[in-house]
Structure formats: structure tokens, C-alpha cells
């Protein structure tokens, strides 16, 4: 039994938002009498944490505590339109819509605060802790809760905002393909080490190291969650997963998790990652999308590592043990031939 090791590398970029644009998302924000804010959306949380991320963006723009933000989403009766959760678009599209809505709501909030403080709204600032101050004047402040009470019960005003983010559609020229397809690009470079058992063709992924560049991170822990989960999925795609193991034949056809193989925890090494931040011009606070690209680097890096270990040329996925053995045999036949 021989075990051989190899390393592989892949550099990838990934567009943020739907290809060719034209995929709007809207947001509504209003203040309650108690001084917290409800962000109303129709975006869908698939587990990536958009309620958290949108609350952070709203709090940042409004200048109020994160804890005072409620994100209510995905009721078509109340939530303004969102194209959907895909295309690495939520942080960027929904995030930008929330920034716009929050800016409008903030303006209304500062106007009401100005009335209470007898100051011009331009002279006011928020401290992020629930207070509004007159710039440079110590002790002259009012709490967000007081502003809310006054707006509702003394001034009879709404403190609310609307946001709509749309990257205008850019059709592709049918002849040349000319278009403006994306809002920004995120980047990743993945390095993988594998060990291959040349007798069984089984591949063990020993190590995954990756650097990502995703613009300004809104929530680094959640970014890391995407990277680690995506690397695992990349191992699955590279080595195991297919609904048609005899592709293009339609049989055999796995119909359960016993036969549709994915890696388990045992097959998944520790993922080491580092994140660079090059803020995007168009992103909310410079953010780019990260949710999809996380599988794209590990897959070619793993296959490159296998080819490197064996000095073979495998160009398909999944690289099942059988694919590995046949590649080894082909190489032996060539060497002998």
C-alpha cells in the first residue's frame, strides 16, 4: 500500500449580485414609540444570518444600539419586495436598501431631536448608545427613546425610512457579450494538501488553508462560518457528490443520504482561513458577497492536489476512488506503452 501526498492551489473571483443586475431589494424602517426600530423586509434567511447582518447595518446607519433593531422579514403582505436569497446578493442588495431606508429614518429622527434640543439637525450626532447629542456641546443631549415619545405623542410625526436598491439591468450584447454584469468581485485563494491511497484510490484531504477578500466584513464570525461550511461542501463536491454516478446515464440514482455520499466530520480537516478587506465602492460600508464562492476554491484546489500527488490528469468531479484508480492505470499503461 502506498500513500502519496500532493498540494493544490486555486485562485477564484466571484461576482456579487445577480448577473446583469436588475435584481432589486427594498426595505422599510420605522421607529416604535419606545424608540426601537423595525426593519421590514421580504428577504429570506437560509441560515446565513441575514437578520443579524441587516440589523447591524441598520444600527450602524441609524446610529442606535444594535439591540434596538428588530428585523421582520418574508411576509409578502408587509415586506417590500426582495428578488430573493441567491447570487451572493443579500448583504449587498438588501444591505444597501437598509442603508438607504435607515438614512431617511435617521434624518427624521434628527429633525425630531432637533425640535426637542432646539438645535439644527445638522448639528446633531448619535453616539450609537441610544443618545443624540449636540456636537461639541457637553451635556446637551436627548435619548432616542425620548425622541420617539415626542415624535409619536407630541409632534405626531412618523420616524421612518424607505430604501430601494437596484443595479440597473445591463443586457448582454448578443454578439460580443459586452455588458456590466456585476456590482463588485470578491476573491479567494485556497491551498489544499491531500493524501491518496494508490491501492484504493481513496483521497484524504489533510489540510485546507484559504485567504478570502470579501470587502468590509459586516460580521466576521458569520463570514468564517460560510468559509468553513463552504470548504466542507467543496470537499463533498470534489470527492463524493453526484445525483448521477453514471453520468450521463441516469442510473444508478441515489435516493437517500445513505447512498448520496457527503463527507462526514472525520473527512473534514481543520480549515485555516484569513480574511482581507478591500472595501467595495458599491457595497454597504464596502461589503461584498461571500455565500457562494466558498465552495468554488476548494474544489479545483483538491483536484489539482490529487493530480499533483499522482502526476495524473483528472479533469472531472467527483473524483471518486474509481476515477483515481483508473487515472493511475492509464498513466501506468502510458508509461509502459
Amino acid at each position, binding site marked *: 500500500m502506498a500513500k502519496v501526498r500532493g498540494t493544490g492551489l486555486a485562485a477564484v473571483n466571484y461576482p456579487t449580485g445577480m448577473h446583469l443586475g436588475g435584481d432589486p431589494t427594498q426595505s422599510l424602517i420605522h421607529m416604535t414609540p419606545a424608540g426601537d426600530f423595525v426593519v421590514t423586509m421580504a428577504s429570506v434567511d437560509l441560515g446565513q444570518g441575514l437578520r443579524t447582518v441587516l440589523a447591524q447595518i441598520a444600527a450602524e446607519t441609524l446610529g442606535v444600539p444594535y439591540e434596538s433593531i428588530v428585523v421582520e422579514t418574508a411576509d409578502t403582505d408587509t415586506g417590500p419586495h*426582495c428578488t430573493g436569497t*441567491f447570487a451572493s446578493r443579500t448583504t449587498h442588495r438588501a444591505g444597501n436598501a437598509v442603508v438607504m431606508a435607515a438614512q431617511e429614518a435617521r434624518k427624521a429622527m434628527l429633525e425630531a431631536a432637533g425640535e426637542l434640543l432646539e438645535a439644527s439637525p445638522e448639528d446633531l450626532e448619535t453616539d450609537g448608545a441610544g443618545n443624540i447629542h449636540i456636537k461639541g456641546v457637553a451635556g446637551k443631549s436627548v435619548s432616542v427613546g425620548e425622541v420617539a415619545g415626542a415624535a409619536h405623542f407630541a409632534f405626531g410625526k412618523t420616524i421612518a425610512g424607505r430604501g430601494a436598491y437596484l443595479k440597473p439591468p445591463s443586457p448582454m450584447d*448578443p454578439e460580443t457579450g459586452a455588458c456590466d454584469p*456585476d456590482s463588485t468581485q470578491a476573491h479567494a485563494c485556497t491551498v489544499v494538501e491531500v493524501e491518496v491511497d494508490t491501492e484504493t484510490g481513496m483521497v484524504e484531504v489533510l489540510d485546507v488553508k484559504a485567504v478570502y477578500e470579501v470587502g468590509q466584513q459586516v460580521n466576521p464570525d458569520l463570514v468564517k462560518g460560510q468559509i468553513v461550511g463552504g470548504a466542507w461542501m467543496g470537499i463533498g463536491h470534489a470527492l463524493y457528490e453526484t445525483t448521477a454516478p453514471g453520468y*450521463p446515464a441516469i442510473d444508478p440514482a441515489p435516493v437517500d443520504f445513505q447512498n448520496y455520499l457527503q463527507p462526514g466530520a472525520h473527512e473534514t480537516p481543520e480549515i485555516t482561513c484569513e480574511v482581507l478587506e478591500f472595501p467595495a465602492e458599491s457595497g454597504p460600508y464596502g461589503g461584498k458577497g461571500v455565500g457562494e464562492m466558498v465552495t468554488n476554491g476548494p474544489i479545483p484546489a483538491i483536484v489539482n492536489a490529487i493530480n499533483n500527488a499522482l502526476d495524473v490528469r483528472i479533469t472531472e468531479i467527483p473524483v471518486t476512488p474509481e476515477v483515481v484508480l483508473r487515472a493511475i492505470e492509464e498513466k501506468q499503461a502510458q508509461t509502459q506503452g
Partner: protein
Amino acid sequence: MSIKQLGVVGRNVGQRDLESHARGQTTYYEDVHYPRMLHLKMHRSAEPHARIVSVDTSAAQASPGVVCVLTHEDLPGKKVWNGLAAVGVGPEDEPILAFDKVRWRGEPIVAVLGESAEAARAGAAKVKVEYDPLPGVFDVEEAIAGAAPALTAHWPRNHYIYPDDHAAAQIRYGDVEAGFADADHIVEDRYQTSPIEQAPMETNGCIAKPGGDGRITVHTNTQAVHFARDNTAAILGIAPGKLRFLGGTVGGGFGGKVDVAVEPISVLGAMRTGRPVKFKYTREEEMQVSSTRSAWRLYIKDGVMNDGRIVARKITSYQDSGAYLRFSSYGSMKHAGHMPGPYTIPNVWVDARVVFTNRPPSSAMRGFGVMAASFAIELQMDKIAKTIGMDPWQLRLLNAYRNDDMKAHRKEVEDAAMVETIQAAARLAGQELPAEYQAMTSWDRKAG
């Protein structure tokens, strides 16, 4: 772009619903309970390509606990549809419930509603469909070769037709043939990805609940609530305001919950019976019926100089759409638009084709169109490095795009950071780079 001092953006504030998940308090679409709820199960095609001779639902109708049986004749609005028809992509090619022909194994034919999931399942199993089998085609290149049977009249050659009668989403930038003529090396290969299941832990499903105000509330795990609502209304020919879609907490998506596969027929069932209707895919349906990630086949031909500069890249790719279009034309455009990857190449030619086969329709998954592109390109980069005897890190850094470079789709690069990302990965992996490569940036003018 300079960023002002940030407060809560950039901070780790936890994830809001984690404690609810850990306590089991998160409410997913099927965690609501309604009395008198019916369950819907689908009778599906057993053949990958066949003429439907007859459909006999009498035994299903008579099966214990079966309340309602729906065929294409019961559809009040559209018989065929495409999710992007409303934004001008089409044609509408996919039957809601099959009639005349089936084009993939698993295609829905008859919906059966029962008092329990088991009553519906047993009833659906009793539907009798007589088929006249037709030859099937499963390979993308065979499908577009002359001898293959045409799946539908929309595409006589089994490939999608882009505007101006183009057979592919195409990129034409520079002159690849001239580039090949000038190149020191030609590097070519063929790449193949597989159909892959999104495999969210929660399968596709919804509950359609008629309300007292004549409206129907749909609890759904779609990835796009407005899209699903508007398409459901359009398919059924009813006013969108009759529908309220509630979602937002989903047990994983990964692109597998964008097809509006369960809502229209469930709403129709609710309209016909006046009762709540639940339609939940079994795991077997999720695996073999719901859209997979499209399989892609690519041929890449590169012209490369001795110093490592890639001077021409020609790509022909075939996206296996399965039997119907769904979002494939979008996926192939995204695929084409991504070429030639994070590299600046002066001559690029891409033909990205959508091909129809007798396979389950494919669709989006995490990185639609781009995953296959990145896979092929990054394997190709290693082949180039080996062919010309260059270090694979250096090859990538040399060719990586810089800000203000022109991309093949004729947009200038902005927000570039590929160079810095590769350099950081080299440091993380303990890979020494020569000084000139360490000095590269996304703002320099590259050697080529």
C-alpha cells in the same frame, strides 16, 4: 474607498437565531398545525421520454382517504410556464402537470390530495399512466448532434436560442485565432462537472391555508417569497392579492428552493377543496426530482507565451439543462460573463450553450455557472504551469487582473484584490515567492 470609523458593522455580535435553534424554538414552514389539513403527493413519470397514451385516475379517486385528484385539465390558468417569462426570458416550456409527453423520469403528471400523507401516497401510486416510450438523449453533445430527437418544438436542435438567433451566450473579445498563432504553446483540455443535489436538510415544501377573507396564506420555504407568490398567481391566473406568502426561515437552500415547484399545485388544491394543503417533497423527490446543480462540460484552449502570459483563451461549454429551461439561460450567461476568470487575457472567445436532455431539469446551486467555470479554469491553470514549466503561484499572479484592466465583457476591473489574496495565501501556506512577485499589486501595470 475610505471607510469612516465603524461601530457595529464589522463586529462579532453573534447570530440572532442561534439560541432559538439550540432550543428547538425556531418555526419552519411545517411547524404550524392546522386541523383538516390535506396532504398532496405527486404521481410522476416512470419514463425519461415517452408519449403519454392515457392517464387513468379512477383507482386513485377511489383509494381510501383520497379527496381530490388534479391533472393538467384542472389547471385554471397556465399549462406551461417559465419562471423568468415575466422578465422577458422564455419561452414558457415546462408543463405544470405533464400532458401529451413526459421528458424526464420524475416529471409530475397527477397530483393526489388525501386525508393523510399515506392516503395521498397510496392514491398517487394507483394512478395508471400508459406510455409509448421514445428514444431518450442524455449526453449534451449527442443531444445537439443531428441525429438526436428534439425534446420540444421550442428548440429543434435541443439547445437554447439566445437573442439574434445565437446558439450560445457568447463573448467575442480580441482575436483568439491571432492569439493562438502568436502563442508559444497551445494548451487544451476537457472538463466535466456532475449534477449535484443542493441537499438542504429540509426538503422543498409548503402549506397552503385558505382564510376567511377569500385569500390563501402559503407557508413556504422558498428562497424568494415575492417571486414565488407572483409566479403562483400567474400560473393559476388569479390576482396576486389573493395570496399571502409567509417564509423567511428556511432549513437550508443552496439554490434548491427557487423553482416554485410546490406552491402553485398546493394553492390549487386549497382552492378546490377549501382545506389546508401540505406538499412536502420526500427525500427521494429532493434527490431525484428537484433541480440539481447543472452539470457542465467545458473545452478550453489557451495560447500561452514562454514567459507565462496567456494571450488567448477559447472556451466552448455545454450546460446540461435537463428537459426544460428553468433558469439555465441565466446560468450560462453568468458562466460566460465570468470568463476568463480572475485573469486578464487580451483575446477571449466563449460559446456557452444550454443543452436540453432527458434528465431532471437542472437549476441553480451555490455559485450558479461560476463553480464549473472556476473548476475548469483553475485545473487549466495548473496544466499551463506544467506545460511551460512555471510555478503555478507565479503563473496566476502574473496573469491576475489588475484594476482598470479591461475584462472580456468590456467592463473595466474595479475592486480587484486577486493579487493580494494570492500573496496572502502564499504566506499562509509557507510558500516563498520571488521578490518581484511579492511586489505585485492590484494597482500595478502587469508585465503583459
